């Protein structure tokens, strides 16, 4: 019974959420807090804060943790399965069908037309990231890290992993006044 509820909650929030994991967080919230009442608002926002403190897809972390908390290890596996697998199957079916017809002119046309849309979606996402950075780091901080990243990635050709680990290290080691002031506010 409980496992069925877990499956329904995460299947629904996965299948109805467009625009990637972060945009389906409100849907997960509705299932977990309102429909099934497994958590109150405060606990949910704690879990969200936790998930945000860790790398990796946000939705699967939320699903896995909430599933684990509600239904143990099986609940976790169940929630992860319900979140990820149905949409992956959809994706494989759709792309396999398209690939089978990729030599026909109309499918080739479809594939050409969709690339600039992907470019626009990514461009918008890029801009969102810059605006969000500006909001928290200010223009100066944002531009400095943007410039460092361009140099490291494009001019020096260093793997992004090294850049990100370096930035994470800088965040952990920094003891600037700004950091402390931010800490007092929270």
């Amino acid at each position: 019974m409980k496992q069925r509820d877990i499956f329904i909650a995460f299947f629904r929030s996965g299948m109805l959420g467009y625009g990637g994991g972060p945009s389906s967080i409100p849907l997960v919230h509705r299932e977990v807090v309102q429909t099934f009442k497994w958590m109150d608002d405060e606990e949910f926002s704690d879990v969200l804060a936790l998930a945000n403190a860790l790398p990796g897809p946000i939705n699967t972390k939320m699903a896995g943790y909430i599933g684990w908390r509600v239904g143990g290890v099986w609940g976790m596996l169940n929630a992860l399965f319900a979140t990820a697998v149905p949409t992956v199957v959809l994706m494989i079916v759709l792309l396999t069908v398209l690939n089978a017809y990729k030599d026909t002119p109309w499918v080739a046309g479809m594939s050409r037309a969709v690339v600039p849309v992907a470019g626009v979606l990514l461009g918008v996402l890029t801009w969102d990231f810059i605006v969000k950075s500006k909001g928290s780091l200010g223009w100066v901080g944002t531009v400095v890290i943007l410039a460092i990243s361009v140099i490291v990635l494009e001019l020096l050709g260093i793997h992004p992993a090294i850049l990100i680990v370096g930035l994470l290290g800088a965040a952990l080691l920094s003891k600037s006044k700004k950091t402390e002031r931010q800490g007092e506010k929270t």
Partner: protein
Amino acid sequence: MIYWQLFLAFFIPGILGYGGGPSSIPLIENEVVGRYGWLTVHEFSEVLALGNALPGPIATKMAGYIGYQVAGVPGAAVALFATIAPSMILMIALLGLLLKFKHSPKVKRMTLLVRPAIAVLLGIMTINFFASSIEGAGYVQTIIISIASLLLLEKWKVPPAYVIGGALVYGAIFLG
């Protein structure tokens, strides 16, 4: 060997993508297109566009499909596992510690400092997508489709799934 490569290709973006699935997209591209050459830029952008047209988390859809294309169903399973499991295990293992530090300014700063770097990765990928589009569909069509989809998405707030659906229909008719 191929499974180990698949694991690494999705483990690295999974463990370094701060800020949820979308921020790991350029890291996935870096591995899948740049390092292993499993997909071309054009193919990757197609997978991303269709991934955006379908519901659900984007990182797992990309991992599942690319894993499947490279090595069938076991490949999909390995790529999904590499995407989900490491951060999941971290989350459960570090739970106590994280609950204590979740409001720590340092932990918040980690996401803040990584964000501009992700923006640059996304920006580079955007440029690659447009370059690939100009190669495939030409300047004129690329500009028409880009401006139309930018207006639809940002000005008129049409959901991405419909814009992508519209582009598919447009392409089938005018670019075939």
